[in-house]
């Protein structure tokens, strides 16, 4: 860990102004940043504590109803608080489940939503400065492709990076078509699906955030049929492990026919993976296992597995089929 300056911001404006300094980082729960600083992977020279922002504007850490019927999730809200919020549990079970199936109780009590969606990959080579990694040190090479990659992505990979996006919550958000409220020198709104970018030839670029921009809220649009939704996560142990494969799904079924569908996959993508291919394979069809399997095949059609993670293709398909079965019965 290197020496760094630490300031505590009292309002969004001053936080964003402070963040104009180069090599600055916001810290909320610190469950990603502090780890990576100890590992010497993140080397900010200025750390801006944003926890006090919610004292001036409680909505920054709250769940509030939007006039459209959706919900606004304050970026400083803690994972646990949002997961157990009655409106979230009622309208968006997949969001609640994605939060509760992540990390551990202690981490969920600390981690903020904004930090969750910006968490860095768990690729062991990214987290170990002794090994080359294009994401950490552009141009140094990808250790995972030639090394161990059982946990790595099979969708959205490039020859430069196969690191999995680790967030469960982000998978639910991408399924819901959430939007993100940002504050930099101006305010702007982007689709959640546009927040993360594929690694391509520049895996060090992970988001479309501008330097110093702060996520202030995540908006969930009204989606009545999301009451029938789920987040299914498959992992190596029953708790406190990242997904090998996961599926966030919502189905609108009427008379056995699928009128609308949302499908996203986790544990397999370099970014939270919305599968419009799967959705297209579902909409207008009857809710049967055969149709679900066809959708799963469509979702994984572009998968590029390697030696250790080849099983993820079949596992992700089965995970998606199971999730679809759960919300259709």
């Amino acid at each position, binding site marked *: *860990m290197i020496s760094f300056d630490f300031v505590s911001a009292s309002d969004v404006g001053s936080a964003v102004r402070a963040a104009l300094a180069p090599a600055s980082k916001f810290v909320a729960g610190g469950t990603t940043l502090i780890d990576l600083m100890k590992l010497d992977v993140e080397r900010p020279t200025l750390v801006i504590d944003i926890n006090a922002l919610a004292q001036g504007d409680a909505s920054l850490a709250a769940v509030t109803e939007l006039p459209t019927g959706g919900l606004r999730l304050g970026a400083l809200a803690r994972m646990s608080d949002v997961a157990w919020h009655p409106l979230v549990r009622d309208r968006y079970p997949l969001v609640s489940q994605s939060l509760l199936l992540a990390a551990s109780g202690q981490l969920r009590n600390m981690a903020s939503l904004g930090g969750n969606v910006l968490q860095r990959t768990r690729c*062991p*080579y990214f987290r170990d400065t002794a090994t080359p990694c294009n994401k950490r040190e552009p141009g140094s090479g990808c250790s995972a492709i030639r090394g161990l990659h059982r946990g790595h992505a099979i969708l959205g990979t490039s020859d430069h990076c196969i690191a999995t996006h680790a967030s469960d919550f982000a998978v639910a958000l991408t399924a819901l078509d959430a939007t993100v409220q940002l504050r930099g020198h101006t305010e702007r709104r982007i689709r959640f699906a546009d927040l993360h970018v594929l690694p391509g030839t520049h895996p060090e670029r992970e988001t479309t955030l501008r330097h110093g921009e702060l996520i202030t809220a995540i908006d969930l649009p009204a989606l009545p049929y999301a009451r029938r939704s789920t987040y299914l996560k498959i992992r*190596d*142990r*029953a708790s406190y492990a990242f997904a*090998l494969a996961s599926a966030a799904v919502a189905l609108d079924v009427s008379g056995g026919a699928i009128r609308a569908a949302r499908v996203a996959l986790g544990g397999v993508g370099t970014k939270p993976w919305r599968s419009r291919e799967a959705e297209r394979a579902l909409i207008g069809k009857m809710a049967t296992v055969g149709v679900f399997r066809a959708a799963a095949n469509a979702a994984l059609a572009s998968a590029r597995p390697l030696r250790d993670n080849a*099983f993820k293709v079949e596992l992700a398909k089965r995970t998606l089929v199971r999730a679809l079965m759960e919300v259709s019965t």
Partner: protein
Amino acid sequence: MTDRDATPSVGAPLDRVDGRLKVTGSARFAAEFQVPNVAYGVIITSTIAKGRVREVDASAALRSPGVLSVLTPQNAPRLTGQLPTMRRPSVLQDDRVHYNGQPIGVLVADTFEHAMAASALVTVRYDAEAPVLDFGAAPRNPPESVRTLSGERTSTRGDVKAGLAQAAVRIDQTYTTPIENHNPMEVHTTLAAWEGEQLTLYQSTQGIFNVRNVIARAFGMTPDSVRVVSYFTGGGFGSKGAPWSHEMLAAMAARVVKRPVKLALTRRQMFGPVGGRPQTQQQVTLGATRDGQLTAIRHASTSNTSTLENWVEPAIAQTKMLYATPNLETQYDLVRLNVGSPTFMRAPGESTGTFALESAMDELAYALGMDPVALRLKNYAERDPETGKPWSSKSLRECYALAAEQFGWSRRTPQPRSMRNGRWLVGWGMATATYPARQLPAGTAARLMPDGTVEVRAGTQEIGCGTYTVMSQIAADALGIPVDRVRFALGVTDMPENPASVGSFTATSSGSAVHEAATALKAKIELLVPGGLASTAASDIVAKNAGRPVEVTITSQPRPEQQQYSMHAFGAVFSEVFVDPDLAIIRVPRVVTAHGAGRILNAKTARSQIHGGVVWGIGMALTEETLIDPVTGRYTNADLGEYHVPVNADVGRIDVHFVDEKDSHVNPIGVKGVGEVGITGVAASIANAVYHATGKRIRDLPIRLERVLLAN
């Protein structure tokens, strides 16, 4: 005050006498000792797996705030003594790199934070060579370099060829287990303080005398120039049985900076520098008659070692004594890899070996169409089949019966995939557990104080198993006094010497010594005052002893029966698994064990030992595996987030039972020890249950879900 009414304590589920200290944070572990003027050491490790350190550039680190010194292979003091050949340390005496993560330097600063910050500024240049990392392709060690601790490489009894020729059914399979690392909660820690030529080490260890002796030898000192203090150790599981590199590096650094140096490993440094279980590849051949009588067993185990030493995982030990077969062949082989040295890890040998043997026995039961318990009873060894000696005691038959009964085994339908619970496939599997009961000489001093307390001192260790508690119970019973009148002290090399807390030695060895010392003290008191503490107040007894505490010091020696009998704890493990038929998720809702382990000193701490063994067995079966990059030899899951031990949610109900077993031969207190036997057999019972649930025989640990998903 007299002690007419003291009720026996041994066997009772007494709460830990040190429980309050631990839950209030008052128990002092190595890193918590405070000494004036302490400095902090951080180990710098290699980032290549093979080659030489050409240059360590510490110039930036030395300019960093608070840095006192950086020791490297270039400038480290030369040790004048002799380094151990087992757990051969990396203490900067040469520039050779044997594995990725090897200590190649130590940085000392005035604070921990300064030390950590500066350590990131050290740059190292290497002459790198291509490491050997592929177990399958690595050359095998020459046979003469392959020796277990007992000296054997191969063994033969009877005629295996003839035995196999008689066999109507034969199983011939290969089983593998991965490299694992111990990962006790407390990382290895040393605080080294010199006073002139006298060195004190406050130490996280399982063996204070091992530390004293090895360090003294390395520094060319007499053993009494080194004092080791260890009141509490936060788990060791074999990794802390003797010193590695960090103790010597801390002592060396303390001498250079002329200040005490505190040095705790990072979690990453727990992978490589302090041992682990090696990878094993075990071929088991079983031959049996149609009615299940074993006609031959062949068991060959190849395990990896490091390029620093030849350490053989004794995975075949149980195969020689568990089943009555006249014909047996065993063989060990080694491959040398550029990885950290392997070492003892909870039930070394029996944990990995029972996975292979007890999986093969299950395969044989299926091949014969025989119940797995019945097959084991059919081949029950009434005497040790290897030595021909009688057992000091053996209750395995009773263990099978009790565990089967408690588990409900009779309701099992043997056909794979024949049992369900909703969507889950249900599997029931079982296996045999065993671990030797051994004893080493151990000393104890005991003295009666005028206030009626008895101070008992033995240089053993508290590694979390309950040593303070059970030793207090043993002393109290031998003296006929209540437990709270015993003051038991351990963990300093000024005390009478005891063996390391390894190999389930503590209860047998130190327990016998405490018993003998307390018994001798009672006799001495009764010589002074007929009737002893039962008739006379302690103050009067001490007065009668010229005002001095009445004191004895003894050394307990193993008895001749050690040579006359074969001594082992045995047990039976029955496991239930639920397997998702599509997603291959495996859950272990229930494990039932029954063990015969001689006298149980404390029903509560003994249960905890077995419970912990079963939890670890679940991890060994399903999740635990050290991952090493095949190109660079870098440990890639070197933290507790990615090195998957079971979390609470992975552990279902564990029912622990002990069979009442009286053993008058094993040692004076009839104890076999329960520290290791609990993990043995567990992985096999779970793998056997997975087969029963799915019809898929997984012979490679851990049983990761893709191994089930993709198996035919």
